């Protein structure tokens, strides 16, 4: 496992932390993300397992992480990048990992992250004619939304 | 004159009753094969009457409603061409070859009616139904010809008469009888060949848009169809009976064996079904045909 960590360290501009067995984190700047992903693929991380977002609302940032898996070495590595929360824009990783296409469409709809280069990212993916805040954001209040749009069974306004 | 009207009314009713009892037994037999109790014996009557008494029926156009009516009329017509023990109805005015063509009216009516909907399931179901019909028609024709050549007549009543007291075609032409059983099995759309109304693939095929009384009439047509297919098989190969009781016993025997194999097979793909029909049943039928020619 340590051989891989040294190889990852060779990619410049990456800060590698090994939490425990098979738990590697690679922190990268916003500009170097695509470069790092490309070199990770060269090293052997052939599969993009998960691409998602953690909504760090406290310090007004989105943390986007790519979980990559190396089939030969049987090792997982997560590339993390922090981007600004107010206008979150990232480049598409579609060219390197084709499976990123669907993930990017989901984070575009659920978190409002704008993805350049993936033309279907803006289009509706799961929700139909949704006109409120992207629902997965922490500042979206689900209970308020559901009490506005739906009527609970034993609510006060006894209709009908 | 009165007797003809009487016959004209109660022969179709008799055919319908026999078909109905077969469907009753079918539900019970398949339940027993799957080790479950199964619906009450007269469940098909409940189903049929419930369908006919539906308050609201939809139709996609005149042809959509006429389809089941044409199919049922064609089946009633075919019933008159099969000799019932005791009275040979219309067999004089149209022989075995005419009967093969008359049985096509039923599928034409169903296809026209179901074709009128814009539903993809319906048109796929019809194309499968006609392809399957083309498949099992080849062996059916070969065995019909071998029976005709054996008895030197195309008149069904004479064929039945020729098989009197015991020497059925089953003993003289065993190969043709086996192929006849497989072909009747395919024609009835039993389990390995229920490609037409495969609920998992094409949502009951042609019947996808039919509900209420339309579906009720299609069910009645299916009962007539069962009667026609099995009565034809019994008349051709098991020598048609002298009285109604033996006729029913023979038909029920054939149907019972079919129901037993019904639950055991998996469904064919449509082109595999046609390949199956054009391979083994056709070869076996040709062998028995050559035997008849040589004899």
């Amino acid at each position, binding site marked *: 496992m340590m051989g891989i960590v040294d190889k990852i360290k060779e990619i410049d501009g990456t800060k590698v932390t090994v939490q425990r067995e098979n738990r590697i984190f690679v922190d990268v700047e916003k500009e170097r993300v695509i470069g790092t992903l490309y070199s990770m693929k060269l090293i052997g991380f052939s599969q993009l397992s998960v691409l998602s977002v953690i909504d760090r609302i406290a310090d007004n940032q989105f943390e986007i992480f790519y979980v990559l898996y190396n089939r030969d070495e049987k090792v997982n590595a997560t590339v993390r990048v922090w981007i600004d929360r107010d206008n979150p824009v990232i480049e598409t990783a579609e060219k390197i990992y084709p499976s990123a296409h669907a993930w990017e469409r989901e984070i575009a709809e659920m978190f409002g992250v704008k993805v350049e280069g993936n033309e279907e990212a803006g289009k509706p993916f799961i929700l139909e004619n949704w006109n409120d805040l992207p629902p997965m954001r922490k500042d979206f209040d689900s209970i308020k939304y559901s009490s506005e749009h739906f009527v609970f069974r034993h609510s006060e306004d006894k209709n009908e | 004159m009165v007797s003809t009207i009487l016959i004209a009314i109660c022969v179709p009713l008799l055919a319908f009753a026999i078909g109905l009892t077969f469907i009753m037994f079918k539900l019970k037999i398949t339940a027993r094969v799957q080790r479950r109790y199964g619906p009450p014996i007269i469940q098909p009557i409940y189903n049929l009457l419930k369908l006919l008494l539906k308050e609201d029926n939809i139709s996609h156009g005149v042809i959509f409603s006429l389809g089941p009516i044409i199919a049922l009329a064609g089946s009633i017509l075919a019933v008159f061409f099969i000799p019932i023990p005791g009275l040979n109805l219309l067999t004089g005015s149209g022989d075995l070859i005419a009967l093969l063509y008359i049985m096509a009216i039923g599928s034409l009516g169903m296809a026209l009616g179901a074709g009128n909907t814009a539903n993809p399931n319906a048109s796929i179901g019809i194309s499968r139904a006609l392809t399957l019909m083309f498949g099992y028609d080849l062996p059916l024709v070969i065995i019909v*010809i071998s029976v005709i050549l054996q008895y030197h007549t195309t008149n069904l009543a004479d064929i039945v008469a020729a098989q009197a007291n015991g020497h059925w075609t089953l003993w003289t032409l065993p190969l043709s009888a086996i192929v006849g059983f497989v072909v009747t099995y395919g024609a009835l759309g039993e389990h390995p060949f229920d490609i037409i109304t495969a609920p998992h693939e094409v949502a009951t095929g042609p019947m996808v848009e039919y509900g209420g009384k339309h579906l009720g009439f299609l069910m009645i047509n299916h009962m007539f169809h069962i009667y026609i297919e099995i009565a034809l098989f019994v008349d051709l190969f098991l020598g048609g009976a002298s009285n109604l009781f033996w006729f029913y016993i023979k038909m029920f025997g054939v149907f019972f064996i079919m129901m037993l194999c019904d639950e055991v097979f998996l469904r064919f793909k449509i082109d595999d079904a*046609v390949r199956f029909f054009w391979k083994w049943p056709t070869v076996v039928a040709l062998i028995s045909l050559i035997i008849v020619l040589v004899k």
Partner: protein
Amino acid sequence: MNMSLELLLATPFIGGLLTYIGGKVHRWVRNLIAVLFSLATVGEMAMYYNTTFKGVVWGSLFGSNLVLQTNPITWLFLFIVTAISLLVIVFSIDDMKKEEDEIVLDSYYMQLLFVEGAMVGIVLAGDLITFFMFWEIMSWTSYFLIVHGGKKSMAAGYKYIIMSVIGAYAMFIAIAMLYAKTHSLVYSDVALALSQASPSFIIWTVVLLSVGFFVKAAVMPLHTWLPDAHSEAPSPVSPLLSGVLIKMGAYGLFIVFYGLLSVNLAKNIMPSVFSTPILLYIIQWLAALSIVLATFLAIMQEDAKRLLAYSSVSQIGYVVLGLATGTSLGVAGGLFHALNHAIFKGLLFLAVGAVIYRTGTRNMSELGGLVKKMPFTFTALLLGIIALAGVPPLNGFVSKWMIYEALIQKKEVFLLIMAFVGSTGAFLYVYRLIHSLFLGQLPEKYENVKDVPILMQIPIWILALSTIVYGIFPGLAMDVIVKGMKLFGFTPIAYNLFGFPEGTAMGSLTVINIAAVLMTAFVAVFIIFILFPKTRQVSQYDNYASGQELTPDFKYNYSFGFYMSFGRVIKPILSMSIERVYNYWIDAFKIFGDYYMRRIYTGNLETYNSYIVIVVTIAAAAVLLGGKLW
């Protein structure tokens, strides 16, 4: 009285010329003259209902006088020719209105009447020279008719005329051989000469003659021109071509085998298999092959008219199969099927022409749901497809039944199986036609389609009614056929107005009972159906698609490649097509031609001058030494 045979022959030709001249005057004058003259020919034809005329000499050529004759069999074909031509002309008045420039229309009507005249000539011909003369006129005028259909029809017409010419050469050689033997080519003299001729001479002449007829009757190996010609021809011409023109090939076969060469003569000069002469048996196998293979090809077609064209190839296979059986029941079945095929194939082509007139397209996967907009054409097409599939109450069934009974009596079992397979296959492609044209989802762009104008509906309706009439009362046509066959030495078969009593074949048939019981059953079921709770109409987009809303911009019902799954089963059979063999030989000749052509026409002037000099010297020498050499 006998003058009128020439009059009957001349009316279409005079009519043709007059329509051309009338066209110059005004459009309606031309239409009127065309209809009047075709009506006149039908009237004259009706006069010869069951009269027989032996030799009416109307001229002589190379010492053998040209003879016209008529008997019930020729009357049957005369009836087919004149009736269908009249209906086609009436149909094309409105249908060809889209053709703007009048000159094309003038020549179109002229050629229609010329083709009719040529076919009348063939049928009335009493000797081989008139027969061959009118045969050629028919080939050429029908070529011009096919070419009317626009650019793609040029290639189709070109292929048609090449193959017809090859067939005509074969016939010409046979006629020349016969002429060398007997200087008079009247049928009776030829029959006399053939009875004494050596078997190899007979076989050669008969084979050469039937090659010519096979090209025109589109029997399998020589059929490749038909699908292109019939589908590219303008829509009123296709019924004429496939309803009538290919029957001339069948008539020719009948004349050769049963007119010139009577059945028992053929029996004793050739070994016979299943009690039919070997030559006839081979023809039966060719016909059966063309039934099955053309049905498979028709099932896989995407274009409505090509489908009908392939079905013509397979249905004419039935006619030839019937004619070649040799027994009186089989030949009667073949002739009756020729009449039935002319009726229901004409009906189908006219109905498809009506659809093309309204929607402008022939591609079956673009059409659909027209039953709501064109109910009349739908019922006509429905009657047509029921007749073509051979379902009892209509006319297709009776003639097929006769052919099957004849084959069973002769124990020719494999031919019977192929005929049955062809008929069930016919059921498949016939349903495909009505399903993709009329049933299913109506595309947006055909929302405002109306039914065809009255003038186009009349012919369709006449043909639809005649499928019912000849289906329920086969006796009408059987009177003519049986009386005619008596002249050619066949034992007459027992028949009555409604079908065939006990004796004729293994079984008996009365179609009126089938039709009556079907009608009463239909009415009874309809009444019971009405008693139950009423139905409400639902829009075509309100379909069960597990909850998904259907929108008009997408064609939901499955119509492209309708029998794709069946196509996978017969893929090996479809892959070996005869056309590829012909194309291979055509390319071979082309390469051979180009190679040597460049040798001769080198393109520089000196070689051409030298050729001229050489030719001149040879000519001079021939003239100078002329007297001494011979």
